[in-house]
């Protein structure tokens, strides 16, 4: 009996102590918050630094840091603090990593990822938590489609944008029967689907769709099959290490020069040096080429080479544009990250003078941009046409 009275009193005491402690802490935080403007901006980065996409993660990070350092290493007048987490291109760790950046580090912005599977996990958490997330690569349609949200932005592309224009190009060049090949995961399937959509609409026939488990790079059996089918052309999506291997194997199997190879630009971006002669003549569609002659690109290539001692590629450009986006938007709001509505509006309204050409966001927060047709000549992606100008992704399923 005594016990229960004692327990009630104890509980009440604990409750009031707890309330006092919380108000004390709240008071302190408010004081700290007023001095918030002087606090650094935290940019959380979730990119792969190990595994087959590691070079892409590095290039995006370099590009972003270059843009920010060109603006004096400040965003809206505030210092920048990067919190870097290795995504390992592992989708299963994506939600936990996102939470680390959001609830653990209280990052103001999250930049990432490369891999579309990781992107799916990130997008879900971003939607639930409302964290401002900028995707510098992962092109899965859903991010600016069914999973779109006001706080999610993408500075790269959708799989649709980079593959759809090639469908018409293929038909124009007289290819009627095409075999497609790609890794069997979201992005690969989406790319092939987009190509098929355009190609079939123009009257072409997809003879066979070959899917290779991701991230396998043993292609010998499939190349034999392609040779057996004798199509007019082959359309593929591969990126990173897989792209290098595929192009080399294609040539070693004697198909190079006999059956034209088409692809979305990732096949030949950041990979030409490793591919060497085997890439000659490959046609790709992409929203960028290192050979573009606009002033922004020429300056960017020079600056990147000077800063990092490496040649820039599409991934570096996307990182750079992400940095520019942050710089410009933060300048517009005067460094104020507290008013999220204003910040989101500022982000959505930016025009980026990018090495790929000027672009702005569509309503679903994906870049509206040109798609270039590139041909590999003498180890360079020469731009031979612009099959789509100001192409906006249809953002199917996005409701904002």
């Amino acid at each position, binding site marked *: 009996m005594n016990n229960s009275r004692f327990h009630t009193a104890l509980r009440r005491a604990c409750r009031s102590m707890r309330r006092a402690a919380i108000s004390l802490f709240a008071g302190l935080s408010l004081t700290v918050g007023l001095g918030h403007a002087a606090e650094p901006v935290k940019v959380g980065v979730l990119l792969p*630094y*190990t*595994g*087959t996409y*590691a*070079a892409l993660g*590095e290039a995006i990070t370099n590009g972003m840091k270059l843009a920010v350092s060109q603006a004096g290493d400040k965003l809206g007048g505030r210092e920048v603090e990067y919190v870097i987490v290795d995504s390992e291109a592992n989708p299963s760790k994506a939600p936990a990593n996102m939470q680390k950046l959001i609830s653990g580090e209280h990052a103001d912005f999250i930049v990432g990822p490369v891999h579309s599977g990781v992107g799916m996990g990130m997008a879900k958490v971003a939607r639930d938590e409302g964290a401002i997330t900028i995707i510098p690569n992962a092109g899965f349609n859903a991010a600016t489609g069914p999973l779109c949200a006001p706080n999610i932005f993408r500075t790269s592309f959708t799989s649709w944008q980079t593959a759809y224009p090639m469908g018409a190009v293929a038909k124009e060049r007289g290819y009627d029967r095409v075999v497609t090949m790609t890794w*069997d995961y979201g992005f690969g399937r989406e790319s092939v689907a987009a190509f098929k959509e355009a190609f079939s609409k123009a009257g072409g026939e997809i003879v066979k769709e*070959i*899917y*290779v*488990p991701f*991230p*396998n*790079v*043993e292609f*010998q*059996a*499939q*190349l*034999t*099959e392609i*040779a*057996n089918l*004798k199509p007019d052309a082959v359309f593929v999506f591969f990126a*990173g*290490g897989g792209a*290098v*291997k595929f192009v*080399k*194997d294609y040539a*070693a*199997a*004697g*198909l190079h020069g*006999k*059956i034209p190879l088409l692809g979305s630009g990732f096949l030949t971006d950041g*990979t030409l040096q*490793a*591919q*060497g002669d085997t890439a000659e003549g490959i046609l790709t569609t992409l929203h960028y080429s290192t050979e573009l002659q606009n002033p922004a690109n020429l300056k960017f290539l020079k600056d990147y080479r000077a800063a990092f001692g490496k040649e820039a590629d599409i991934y570096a450009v996307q990182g750079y544009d992400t940095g520019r986006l942050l710089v410009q938007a933060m300048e517009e709001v005067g460094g104020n990250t507290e008013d999220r509505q204003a910040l989101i509006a500022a982000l959505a309204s930016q025009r980026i003078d990018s090495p790929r050409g000027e672009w702005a966001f569509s309503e679903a927060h994906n870049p509206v941009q040109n798609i270039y047709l590139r041909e590999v000549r003498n180890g360079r992606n020469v731009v031979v046409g612009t099959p789509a100008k100001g192409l906006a992704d249809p953002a199917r399923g996005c409701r904002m």
Partner: protein
Amino acid sequence: MDPAFLLIQVLNGVQYGLLLFLIASGLTLIFGIMGVINLAHGALYMVGAYLAFWFTSRTGSFWLAILLALPLTVLLGLVIERWFMRALYKRNHLDQVLLTFGLILVLNECQSILFGNDVHGVPVPAPFSGSIPLTDVLSYPVYRLFVSFVCALIAVGMYFLIQHTRLGMVIRGGASNREMMAGMGINVHTVFGLVFAAGTALAAFAGMISAPLSSVYPGIGDSVLIISFVVVVIGGIGSIKGAFLGALMVGLTATFGTVFLPELSGAVVYALMAAVLLWRPRGLFA
């Protein structure tokens, strides 16, 4: 089905299988003779590939690179055996699995620190860089034929070593009865050190000669690890002949699996292993 197509796929499967044999043979020797599960075997393959890339880019010659890299990998094998494996002989399988798992993490991270994370190509060495036309469209890379030839040569060499030499006798004896070997005055530690170093060198060499075929990038060790275990289990632990035939079986199954059952190609090889284990729990040729 076009017979030429089938034949070429058989060629593909055999080539893949022969390469797997090189990796699996080292594994089965280590398993069979020393009774140790070495999960880091795949990482050793990776070490070979990276060394081949590095020396080739420094010296310009692929052959010189192999000549330089091989002694290094033998040394690495001896070091690993002395420091880590030796502690595991008396331990249970769980400890072996975990310690070698830790070794994988260490080796992978060393690769990342020393060589970075970019994808690297290794040019196919000059005399073998062409392709032989097989049909009007398809050619077969000469280098792949060369690789198959080398693997087959090594297989024959191993056969002779194991079956017809004294060293081979010691190895076969050690596989069946360690205590007896020690009782007969043979220095078990030396034999083990040699076997482990040899197994390491075989895996690393496999990595070196495949480097021009695949690119060199982080994670290539993991992809060969499990499949080489499958080969060993199918063939029977400790049996070189088993490793050879098991490797061919796996190579052909994987190749034809990717062509005819692409959605299940990954699972098919494991289904094969499961089937073999159920029929012959000790492997086909133990």
